């Protein structure tokens, strides 16, 4: 769990170009200034590349916070 969030945090830092970002499962788009709909696309693609997974279209649409992203990742990664 902590390993995923660490790796995920790095993706967030890269995509939103902000080294001070520290995410938690409760983090939502409003918490990060540059997290708009276009950067969200970079985020999804970069998470997919980094974790070598592919999310489903409707799944991505339902994400409400970082916790949902982690859950999506957990369901795909070998435990």
């Amino acid at each position, binding site marked *: 769990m902590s390993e995923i969030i660490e790796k995920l945090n790095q993706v967030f830092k890269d995509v939103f170009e902000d080294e001070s970002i520290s995410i938690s499962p409760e983090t939502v788009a409003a918490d990060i200034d540059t997290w708009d709909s276009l950067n969200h696309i970079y985020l999804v693609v970069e998470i997919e590349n980094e974790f070598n997974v*592919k999310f489903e279209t409707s799944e991505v649409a339902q994400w409400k916070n970082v916790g949902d992203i982690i859950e999506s990742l957990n369901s795909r990664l070998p435990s």
Partner: protein
Amino acid sequence: MDTMNYMTARKLAKKKDTSLNIPVSVGILGNYTTHFFKDHIRNLLILSGYNPEIHEGAYDQTDIELLDPDSGIYKAKSEIIIILESALKIADKSYAMSTEAKATLADHFLEVIERRIQLINTHNPVAKIMMFTFELYDDNGFGNYFSKTDQSLLRQFYLLNSGLMELTAKYTGFFVLDIQKILFRNNPYRDASLLLSSDLPYTLETQFDMAKTATSFIGAMKGKLKKCLILDLDNTLWGGIIGDDGPENIQIGDLGIGKAYTRLQQWIKSLKERGIILAVCSKNDEQIAKEAFLKNHNMLLQLEDIAVFVANWNNKADNITHIQEVLNIGFDSMVFLDDNPAEREIVRQRHPNITVPELPADPAFYLPFLQQLDLFDIASYSEKDKDRTRQYQEEAERRSLQIKYSSIDDYLESLTMKGDISAFNSQDIPRIAQLTQRSNQYNLRTIRYTEQEITAIANSPGYITYTVKLSDKFGDYGLISVLVLKLVSPEEAFIDTWIMSCRVLKRGVEDFVLENISKDLKRLKIRYLSGEYIPTAKNKMVAELLLKVGLTPVEKGIFKGEIKDFVIQKHFIQ
């Protein structure tokens, strides 16, 4: 830059100070989400030395933007307008069309595209327009009967693409870039999920590659061209070592791996015919190296294809310096091919601006690898390009003659030069445009013109134009200098453009030109000539030019003087 991805590009571009970069303004319109392409091309332009200003049109509003003379796209006065059209969007629209409309879909969209070109030409005549070809999208509606059925989407996309070719022939400021090769090398190029959720027909990586292609083409338009290919010999142009194996036994021809080298030579020969200068840089005894060319009948490249042939045991970086001096072109316009990674590294370290492709280990992959690098992009082409190798060989002969004469005047006189100066004429338009696009050194203001702009200048009463052609006893240089004088008042002409090919430096061409111009201007009762020097990284050699011809500085970079005060030196051009 070959292996860089868009995240790295974004990071690097952000760090770069663009204040000294060359400004370029680009407008982007499209029928899908163009935001990512815009990000990519901005970053790539920054990394290629430009300071881009980008105007992005509203989502899928291309025609509305172009119809409105006050729209942002015209206000931005973009030099380049890129229109991105997704075939999938057109497919979507087609499903709502009548059978008749579907059967004439290509015609319909070609009319739309032609109208857009005309609108841009009207409201922003300087803009060059770029599009990608249409993806050959097949919804499999008619399977493999597509070619015989007008209603087949796939057939319509083929027709659309062939129509685009015709439009590029009709409108000189309209350019089409090939999407198919980009899609091939980025497969899978589509992410169905991104298409659905964000209206992105191509993955972000694919769009990055499209932006790379467009950036390289913009570079070519603005004079960033590769002009010379420097070749190693053993295991690069043929298999084996000429010194050990002998001319009969090197691998070239129809057998085995020899075929890979033959194909590479075919390609290199076609580049040469298109005007790329070839040079050889090899660690060999010159005589032995040349035997391969003279004695192996499978060799496609001949000695006369090579402008500068250097084979010795010196350091290759030094030899390349020599080649650069003889050709008198920038290192950044040269490409060096060598199979040996150590040699590549030495050359890269000494000449960081030379492009040195990281050739694959297997010669079978040399050619496909080189072709997909898109190194030799051009934005114009003229028949004269073919003669260039001969011209450089003539230059080598002239250099050896120069040593025999004690004074420069004796030497120049012995050349029996003939000059021909005249106003722009229609056959020369492509070459004139090309000189404005390619010349970097002897170029006062470095203003780049397209063929259509040159035609407009030639036909305008507000300009006086000159081309200069030169020949001497060794051969014909062709059209080597271009001047455009703009009439800014009834008695003053301003030097809008003064370009000369560096092959004719120090031949007295400037004095020949001035002599003729001053006669013309006196006849036209024009008293003053003014000019401007706009410094770039490459045109230092003309920093003093206006001063030397007798103009006086009036403000920073601006010079002015009376025609009667021209300083014209003695010259030997008849």
